[in-house]
């Protein structure tokens, strides 16, 4: 039987690959997609998600618009620590490059599909309370929606099979010296989700970096010949273009973070190294948003699993298999 899942996305280039993979995989039953602010503002992440779901011929999958900003961090006078990396990235012709374009390539045309009338937080509470079987949640953006839902109705944790979070990092960071963007964007929500009582599996930067895709991988994906594969390959290539310019050096690949979270739910063997860990989130100060793993000789009781490595070949093969399926 297909695994029942809810995606929570800030679409977003890698989110789009994740959504397409989930909707093309017969082993997943995507019950709903929630949107959230993050890579872009929530109006754009919602619009991108609606267009993608429609384009994939899955307009029956409901999309719930979520929160537009963090639970509390931006209330603090110095809550938004300067990440110090705001310089523009441009190509040889002076065109500005982005890792997440406001409107993703391939989704230029508006669609009929609209978001559902209730918001993502209300949806989580009402839907999960009504379930007799547990549901797997795959949040791959800031955790605001779930943080809100679990604050308002902590009882819904009992209806969650597991939460597979794309976020955090042990030896890898991106938005600040020690933090990954999804967690840094809403550390309080992440801490609430981590401590809610449902099983948590982290798909952090360590794992996503270990299975980054290069241009040859993109060509392989595109060669499967479907719209979805071509769409995903194009987004991956745009990410590689951006990262090669922004990181510099000889970097010529890109982590498709969110898609690894989805693949981990389809077949966890794509993760080749997963540690039991005790994790808390740093809430303020220089390490705001860091996923702190208890490293003492005798750590506190494990409260999650933390993936540190994934198989590049398996990840690519899964993307080719699912995105390459005829619509």
């Amino acid at each position, binding site marked *: 039987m297909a695994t029942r899942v809810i995606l929570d996305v800030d679409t977003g280039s890698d989110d789009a690959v994740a959504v397409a993979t989930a909707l093309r995989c017969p082993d997943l039953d995507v019950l709903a997609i929630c949107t959230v602010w993050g890579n872009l503002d929530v109006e754009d992440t919602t619009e991108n998600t609606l267009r993608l779901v429609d384009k994939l011929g899955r307009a029956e999958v409901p999309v719930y618009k979520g*929160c*537009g*900003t963090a*639970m*509390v961090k931006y*209330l*603090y006078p110095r809550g938004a620590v300067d990440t110090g990396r705001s310089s523009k990235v441009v190509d040889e012709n002076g065109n500005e490059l982005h890792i997440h374009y406001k409107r993703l390539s391939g989704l230029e045309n508006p669609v009929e599909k609209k978001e559902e009338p209730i*918001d993502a*937080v*209300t949806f989580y*509470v*009402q839907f999960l*309370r009504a379930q007799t079987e547990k549901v797997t949640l795959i949040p791959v953006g800031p955790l605001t929606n779930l943080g*809100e839902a679990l*604050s*308002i*109705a*902590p009882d819904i944790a009992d209806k969650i099979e597991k939460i597979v979070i794309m976020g955090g990092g042990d030896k890898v960071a991106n938005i600040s010296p020690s933090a990954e963007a999804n967690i840094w964007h809403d550390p*309080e929500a992440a*801490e*609430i989700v981590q401590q809610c009582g449902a099983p948590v599996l982290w798909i952090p930067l360590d794992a996503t970096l270990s299975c980054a895709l290069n241009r040859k991988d993109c060509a392989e994906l595109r060669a499967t010949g479907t719209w979805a594969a071509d769409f995903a390959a194009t987004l991956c290539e745009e990410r590689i273009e951006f990262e090669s310019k922004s990181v510099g050096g000889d970097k010529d690949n890109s982590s498709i973070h969110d898609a690894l979270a989805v693949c981990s739910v389809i077949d966890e063997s794509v993760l080749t190294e997963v540690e039991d860990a005790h994790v808390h989130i740093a*809430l*303020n100060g220089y390490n705001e948003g860091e996923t702190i793993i208890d490293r003492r000789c005798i750590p506190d009781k494990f409260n999650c699993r933390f993936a540190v490595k994934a198989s590049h070949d398996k990840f690519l093969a899964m993307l080719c298999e699912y995105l390459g399926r005829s619509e």
Partner: protein
Amino acid sequence: MRKIILDVDTGSDDAVAVMAALLAKDLKVEAICSTWGNLDIDHTTENTLRLIEAMGKGDEVPVYRGCAAPMAKFLCKDRLPLAIRPLMKDGKEVHMHEPELKLEKATIKEQDLPAPLFYIDYLLHAEEPVTLVEVGPLTSLGHALRIRPEIVKNIEEIVIMGGGDRVANCTPCAEFNIWADPEAAEIVATCGAKVTWVPLDATHAAYLTKKDCERFRAIGTFEANFAADLIEGRILAHTLGQPLAEPDAAAVHDPLCICYLIDPTVLKDVQPVEIHLGFYGVGEGETIVDRREGLITPNSYFAFDADRFKFCDILCDLFTY
């Protein structure tokens, strides 16, 4: 007829506010939300239910259960609840808020929908604006405004019992409701709706005395007698733990918000101010009134004083029916 939603952590003074609101002919109580605060959420919800049932209004007003903890602050170990030293009298503990109101257990139940989601659902679909009377920690409304900021369009006014300028209670500079969830308070204070603060400066000025309780008892209704019981309990707690300048007196904070809706002149020296909240350290939960000249953009009204005689008269009118 002004429509209101009450948000309470019942609570001794909350109970007086609930009775006053339900008896006011000019107010229509659309719903009551409970919140954690004076007591845990189970007790504040049960107390609210048993009170409206005792008033014979159990089937008239829906009660929605709110949150059990603040939005974020308890995530930080250095921001956990204060240890409260109990007040003692003749070897017995005295509480400003007894865990259970001395009324029959409730037979009615709260609604299934959590309070923050009720706010969203109600306010998104309201045909006319409603006034929110918030007399506990602002957790539920903070969540609701975070999730759906556009609900502010149907809020006529938010009346907050909380904060203080030159008066504090739970820390050297903070009032309890605001200290309990400063993040939620900041979201509410800056949401864009008309916000009126009824802080300790006003509620301490509007103290009630044992003599006032005698006036209530002479009225003889259930609400007048029960209010007198509750206020006498508060007078004892005040005398032991927070003595006011006037002996044998108590601040009865929450109903002052209700009386303000019936007669705004019960509040005095109401000034437009810019308020922000202290979040961390010794200033946690302080309602910071921006005092810089020429720099402020008022975001709310703040009552620096109140008329205690008018307050008592309005309550007597309400309890007489």
